[in-house]
């Protein structure tokens, strides 16, 4: 294998694939990236056996071939090469070292043969549809924070995506919950997604995909089966296994009759929560919301450090129901308000039952929060 590629293209491609590589790897070859060149097409592949990322870019090749080399080392080398430089890769095949040359710099890297590199097969992906990058970003950002890290309930360790029919309106839904909060976001169902099974996309896949989406524009191709999902983001193809489990029947925990409605500017609310919560370094301490007509008092206390409170009055708060006291973990509140631009609307039942939170100007996302004891 012999080819030359420009540093910038290479660096970007390596950055995409190398973040999939497990940092602490027990199987040496999984720390490697597979480099293959065929008639000016250079493909870089990395996998942790759950996710595979393949990036295809253009290179000037003089001899086709393939090898694998340590992803992190390769990335560090290319990163340190001067901008605008070209890098020549030369691998004689078999057990030979991979030789890199750029200007007067040369290196020889231990390469492992590609035969040991695990191939992740996608199988047949029957369901194919596209989503605008913007929409996919929105689905992820508004649900990702609620993904559980609890190992026992592994089926909560991802975003559940499925098609739903709401009395004739077909939507694509993304749902995540850790038991304390739940996020449900829906978008119009794209063509081709109608018959798709409900799938749980693992957290790591969600994170990798989200990174790729940072720079993405236009439509993202999505294909999936019961066990695999694939995203094409520009020149990158990300294939991932899905979580094999049953997501809970989340609709049953979403309250229907919450009738005490609070409306407040998301920014005002978020800042007040952050100020009040600063009194306690314990992350799990609740922030108490005390409500009366058009008045919201936020307060928090810490046995070690004292207490704090802030009032939001009729200028900033609308609340018409009876007095109520309820507590939430500050971080949970902020995770939601981070996603709400204008006014945020709370719908309470009482101080102990699940509360619904929504963007007052956008019904596509719905959040449910379990109160804490205050």
């Amino acid at each position, binding site marked *: 294998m012999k080819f030359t590629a420009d540093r910038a293209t290479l660096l970007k491609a390596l950055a995409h694939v190398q973040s999939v590589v497990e940092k602490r790897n027990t199987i040496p070859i999984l720390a490697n990236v597979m480099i293959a060149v065929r008639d000016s097409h250079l493909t870089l592949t990395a996998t942790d056996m759950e996710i595979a990322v393949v990036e295809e870019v253009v290179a000037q090749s003089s001899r086709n071939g393939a090898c694998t080399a340590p992803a992190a080392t390769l990335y560090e080398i290319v990163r340190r090469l001067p901008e605008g430089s070209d890098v020549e890769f030369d691998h004689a095949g078999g057990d030979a070292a991979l030789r890199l040359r750029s200007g007067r710099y040369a290196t020889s890297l231990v390469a492992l043969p590609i035969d040991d590199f695990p191939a992740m097969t996608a199988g047949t992906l029957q369901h194919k549809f596209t989503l605008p990058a913007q929409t996919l970003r929105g689905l992820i950002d508004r649900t990702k924070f609620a993904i*559980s890290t*609890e190992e*026992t*309930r592994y089926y*909560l360790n991802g975003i559940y995506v499925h098609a739903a029919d709401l009395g004739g309106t077909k939507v694509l839904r993304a749902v995540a*919950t*850790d*038991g*304390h*909060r*739940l996020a449900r976001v829906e978008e119009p169902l794209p063509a081709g997604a109608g018959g798709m099974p409900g799938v749980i996309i693992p957290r790591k896949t969600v994170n990798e995909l989200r990174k790729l989406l940072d720079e993405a524009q236009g439509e993202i191709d999505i294909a999936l089966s019961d066990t695999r999902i694939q995203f094409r983001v520009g020149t990158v193809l990300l294939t991932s296994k899905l979580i094999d489990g049953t997501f*809970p*029947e*989340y609709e*049953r*925990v979403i309250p229907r009759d919450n009738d005490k409605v609070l409306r407040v500017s998301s920014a005002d609310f978020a800042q007040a929560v952050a100020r009040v919560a600063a009194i306690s370094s314990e992350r799990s301490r609740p922030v108490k919301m005390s409500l009366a007509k058009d008045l919201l008092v936020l307060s928090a206390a810490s046995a070690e450090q004292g207490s704090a409170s802030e009032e939001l009055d009729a200028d900033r708060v609308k609340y018409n129901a009876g007095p109520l006291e309820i507590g939430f973990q500050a971080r949970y509140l902020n995770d939601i308000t981070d996603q709400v631009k204008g006014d945020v609307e709370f719908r309470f039942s009482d101080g102990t*039952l*699940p509360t619904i939170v929504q963007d007052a100007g956008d019904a596509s996302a719905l959040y*449910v929060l*379990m109160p804490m*004891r205050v």
Partner: protein
Amino acid sequence: MTQSLCRDCGAAPGDSPVCAVCGGRRIVRHDELFSLHIAHVDCDAFYASVEKRDRPELIARPVIVGGGVRGVVSAACYIARMHGVRSAMPMFKALKACPDAVVIKPDFRKYTDAARRIRALMESLTPLVQPLSIDEAALDLAGTEALHGAPPAAVLAKFALAVERQVGVTVSIGLAPNRLLAKIAAGRDKPRGFCVLGADAPALLAREPVRLLPGIGPAQARKLEALGLTRLGHLQGLDDRDASRLLGDDGPALTARARGVDTRRVDPARETKSISAETTFNTDIADAAALESHLWRLAEKLASRLKRERFAAGGVVLKLKTAAFASRTRTHRLAGPTQLPDVLFAEARTLLRREVDGTAFRLIGIGAAALAPGVEADRPDLADPAKPRMVAAQGAIDALRAKFGPAVIGRGRGLK
């Protein structure tokens, strides 16, 4: 200046070895005796003492409380201890060491009753009582001097006598500037002890072996000894950087404790540290199904103990002991605190299945750690829509059992 106190009459005997007022010799002296206010109270050989109280003919005999064909020692009186009997020792070993011992099956109702009466006496001294187990508690008597008209040391000495008179068992007391030193002090003068540690503590601790420090178990002690750190003085001498380098992230905290530093408050809300249930089999068991059926019964027992003590399990501990007496402890944190036997069982079973590999076990146990307040148990869980029904079903079972006894209703899996 050294302050002194006669533990029997409360007088200040000064330097005299005998109290001029009552003639007693139980005199405690310390430079900071009347300014320290954190105490650790530990009952002496608690279960055995209660049994001796109720059966005075056993006073001079070695008594072991423990049970079953192959049970372990729950408590050994000081006479039995002189023969080498220790709590948690397998009964056959204990009887080998002390063949004359009188073995008594534990009667927990009696012990909890005694413990409750001791707790009540403690709570008359200060609201800041943190029970640590059935027979141990930490007390903070700060600011109680005006109330009692006497410094904490004198109040505690009177308390110890009151426990002897009213409950019929003896206690050992440690008085110190913090909980760690108070606990160490309580253990230094057992039984019927009263020991004070203050500014002199670091120097006293320096000479002691590392395993004296609460929290350093046999395994960690061996690790430290392998590093040449055999005395607490060696730990005291390490600066934070060396401590982290040699002992890992917890190193600096460990060396601070070796110097007698402890910032924990006495917190009455944090009572017991763990609640558990275990059983030793009559014959060793390797079969998964058989182990699981024991586990279920223990999960039910644990759940009812949690409810009785108004706690919830924040995590589950599975304890196993192999036929060769090797202990295995596996822990898993729960998503939310629970009192449901089903949840406790399911988590413990997951842990158990990883351990079942043909090994024969002699003991299985299930415990709750960390404990959470009972009111936080089984809060609605957004990821578990079936939970409210499970809670309601268990509530119905509990109600039936409260009315008709525990045998009136049970799950099918308990019948195996």
